[in-house]
């Protein structure tokens, strides 16, 4: 502000910011912020119930319903687990990826979405390299849209499966969550926060259950204003200090594809932020280690840590299928279950 301006001279009324009309469809899951605590509890409960259900019975829940997977970015875990999840419920799935489709010929996201709807898709699972793409697709198609990662923005099902993993380790048996469920728990998210949709969804979700989120990384990958993204978020640049306070440690990959010219000294980065067996043993011997994948062994964490007893990385992958079954079911049955959870 201009220091010479008369301070607080006028208390002015301004045009209001309109409330977000999203989600248009009660079955959509665009952001971790779309879910109430009840909604989160329902998804966790359904994930467990569906996981334990007889596959032949489960198969009838969405029998012959049509679910489209629309993937503009490569993916192993998210795509496969969404696909397996939808198929386990009996749905027909179809995969459209940016290569090998008319997207290559310049078809817009809007037209691709309308085409999928015309083909009978009842829900679309979208992975896209642009932040906000899921909102565009939902407003144009009004179908249930499941955000499977939009640019650097959000990845809500990842946050839900991370939550399921954290609960299994720190609050075993918990399915109904409240604002105190994770009281006293500190979760460190470490590394390339700036480009991470996983970090953003977790930063939105975990503090609502009472967790404290520590963000840890160098300035280039973690701007100061990240702390203003929501309540319960603190920046701790010192990795070892963060480890000492953490019950859960979420390591992130350096997203080379999104660095956009940013120069980063990887050796320096490893020295400061690599999760090694020694750091883990001395500073956080009880903590659970998470990573959304893909992991780069020897960069953000050592192979020993990835394969070690504190690692929950493969457990996260398994939880992904359960969570995504619950989320796909919610997408197609949201109305029957009494609307927006």
């Amino acid at each position, binding site marked *: 502000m201009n220091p010479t301006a008369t301070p607080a001279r006028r208390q002015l009324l301004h045009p209001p910011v309109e409330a977000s009309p999203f989600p248009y469809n009660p079955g959509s899951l665009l952001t971790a912020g779309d879910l109430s605590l009840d909604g989160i509890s329902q998804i966790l409960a359904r994930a467990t119930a569906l996981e334990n259900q007889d596959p032949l019975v489960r198969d009838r829940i969405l029998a012959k319903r049509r679910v489209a997977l629309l993937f503009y970015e490569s993916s192993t875990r998210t795509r496969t687990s969404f696909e397996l999840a939808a198929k386990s419920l009996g749905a027909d799935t179809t995969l459209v990826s940016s290569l090998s489709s008319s997207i290559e010929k310049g078809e817009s996201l809007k037209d691709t979405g309308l085409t999928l709807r015309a083909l009978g898709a009842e829900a679309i699972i979208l992975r896209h390299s642009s932040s906000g793409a899921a909102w565009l697709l939902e407003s144009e198609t009004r179908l249930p849209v499941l955000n499977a990662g939009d*640019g650097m923005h959000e990845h809500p099902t990842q946050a839900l499966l991370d939550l399921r993993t954290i609960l299994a380790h720190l609050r075993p048996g918990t399915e109904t969550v409240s604002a105190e469920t994770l009281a006293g728990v500190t979760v460190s998210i470490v590394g390339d926060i700036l480009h991470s*949709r996983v970090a953003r969804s977790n930063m939105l979700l975990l503090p609502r259950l009472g967790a404290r989120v520590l963000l840890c990384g160098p300035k280039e990958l973690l701007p100061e204003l990240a702390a203003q993204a929501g309540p319960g978020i603190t920046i701790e640049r010192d990795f070892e200090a963060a480890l000492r306070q953490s019950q859960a440690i979420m390591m992130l990959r350096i997203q080379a594809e999104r660095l956009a010219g940013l120069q980063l000294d990887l050796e320096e980065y490893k020295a400061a932020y690599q999760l090694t067996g020694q750091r883990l043993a001395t500073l956080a011997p009880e903590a659970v280690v998470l990573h959304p994948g893909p992991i780069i062994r020897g960069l953000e964490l050592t192979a020993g840590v990835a394969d070690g007893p504190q690692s929950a990385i493969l457990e996260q992958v398994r939880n992904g299928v359960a969570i995504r079954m619950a989320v796909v079911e919610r997408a197609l049955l949201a109305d029957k279950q009494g609307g927006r959870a």
Partner: protein
Amino acid sequence: MTALVISGGHLLDPAAGVDALKDVLLKDGHVAEIAAPGKLKSANGAEVLDATGLYLTPGLIDMHVHLREPGQGYKETIATGTAAAAAGGFTAVAAMPNTSPVNDSPEITRWTQAPERGAVVRVFPIAAATRGSKGEALNDYAALKSAGAVAVSDDGRPILKDNIMRETLAAAARVGLSVIQHAEDTRLTQGGSMNLGPMSFKLGLRGMPAEAESSIVERDIRLVTELRDTRVHLHVAHTSTAAALAAVRQARRNGLRVTCEVAPHHFLLTEEHVGMYNTNAKMCPPLRSAADRDAMIEAILDGVVDAIATDHAPHAVHEKEVEFENAPNGITGLETALGLSLRWLHKEWKMPLGRVLSLLSAQPAALLGMKGRGTLTVGSFADVVVFDPKAEWTYSAREGKSKSRNTPFDGWTMQGKIRWTICEGRIAYNAKP
């Protein structure tokens, strides 16, 4: 020739200090007579417009619009853009040169003004400061001026290089043209699609820092200072940051001829209005923080801001129905500027009506050296807007005259309903034809 009498209205002409009931006779494109109410009713053969209960004021002047011709007629044409201008009370618009091709020649400058374009209000071209607006080589300003250019600018892009900007300021000053700078250090805004701040982080969008604007404004002011030539006129386009305004404020205290404009969206909206990726809230410079927005209002009320200009930037619907970072920058503004300015600056923030209108007419006319405009005295151009300054109405982009409807103000309440817009004696807009 054609004659028009506007009778029974309240003439508000801030530049001439008139604020009273007057009848006005317009003849041959100029103001022929101003008289006490009732005196001009029987003027020979003149058509009479009954303005009882209405205000008449000098036609509005928008010194920053994009009319998209030549080259992008699917977004807007000079005909549709000026129809939108007339509907918004504007009788003159200054058209930015970032067309396709760029207006960097006397030929395009003349083409823009040719009668074949079908303009219903006066179009004043702003020519490119550098060839192709690439910021490398200066154009021939004398030739552009004699072809009708009222200023030079590379709007849409900055003139980034110090030496080129210095030469531009000096060369424009020699022929008496203003330099309008799009202040954006593009080295700091690469890949950015909204203001850099907590919102851009939250939305996962790359941000454009406030310093990208203020650092260029500060650099430009330094160049003006160094040139020591009182003819140099630097005008800062679409000012959006508190820091840039502070620099302009200081430059003025130092006696420099540095002026600035602010667009309605920058004194009304903030980055919060981007909401969930509303591409109709995407423009360059972007919507800024609440502190920046407050600084715009403060500077308008304090008189540091010289003009309200819309940066009217039409885009086709399909161009905006895309991923936020891929959407083009810009929103329309011609049909909402008066309604928003009266609703907020005048009604809500108590700025006197005459001062608001002056920012939309007399002051931009003075900045661009438009003689005989921005005032209604005998002999001046018959550019008049007749309106009800109190009437509220709801803006519907769908019903607008612009070819495009990329606006964040669709459905907003406006104040000040236009009855007629008259450009050089011809009715350019009639609310009840």
